[in-house]
């Protein structure tokens, strides 16, 4: 399945990655602070297991970095 994360095209195995929680785990973000937007809508962390991954989904996954 083709998705876009942070502007880059990714091909994911839809048999392994069924929902957004799976996606996040595959990206090794589980223990990190992050926030996730799918197609312009924020998905709360508590909802990640309930949200299925769809072909063409566009994700923005962000963290906090140094800034002024």
């Amino acid at each position: 399945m083709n998705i876009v994360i942070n502007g880059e095209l990714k091909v994911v195995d839809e048999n392994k990655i069924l929902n957004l929680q799976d996606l996040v785990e595959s990206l090794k973000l589980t223990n990190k602070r992050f926030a996730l937007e799918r197609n312009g809508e924020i998905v709360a962390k508590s909802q990640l297991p309930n949200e299925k991954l769809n072909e063409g989904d566009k994700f923005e996954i962000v963290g906090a970095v140094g800034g002024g």
Partner: protein
Amino acid sequence: MDKFIIGSREVKSRLLVGTGKYKDFNQTAEAIQMSGAEIVTVAIRRTNIGQNEQEPSLLDFISPEEYTYLPNTAGCYSADEAVRTLRLARELLDGHNLVKLEVLGDAETLYPNIVETIEAAKILVKDGFEVMVYTSDDPIVAKKLEDIGCVSIMPLASLIGSGMGILNPWNLEIILKNSKVPVIVDAGVGTASDAVIAMELGCDGILMNTAIAAAKNPVLMAAAMKKAVESGREAYLAGRMPKKLYTASASSPTTGLIK
């Protein structure tokens, strides 16, 4: 007591600092600790997907438990980008709703785009954020942003990263006279005296980043800035002597001189 309240929070230090532009995270941590700041700004950026899981992050050095993170919208040029960025930040920081809004006008000056800023502020306030808002020194706009419900007005002293100090103290004074929420100078402070001057004008606090991070010795400059903000606040509260243009006034008695 000289309380400093931003939105629903009481803060002790009137110095707020950014976390960008340091040599490394160790220096960031050391300088910020030395500054005595409690509120630190952070930027929201795409996570570097596929990076080393063990790679250190800002949060390992500046604990979100110890410091109040203030996510900003640096780099946003439209109300829409800014609003999306801060909603992500709120999610990222577990519902934390104190944010710094800035919508920029162009990349060369980083001067705020006031029209977009007003738009974004309206949306964010309605959405439950406590909005601290970076703005120009336009007193009409400052009042409008306060009326919209922003919890702090953050006028620039001069361009972001310029270190030019307070270019128009007169506009700042109008903003201060009209404001009921804290006025925090954001951007343009270049050295300790700039911070003192801002505080002496009656500003409630100062947010700075480059002045500390781009000093030759950032940690020592952080110490200087802590004292500068405190000194300026105390001088403001103490009430300075009047200026006298051309008539000097002796500090020693004018009688009892030997002949």
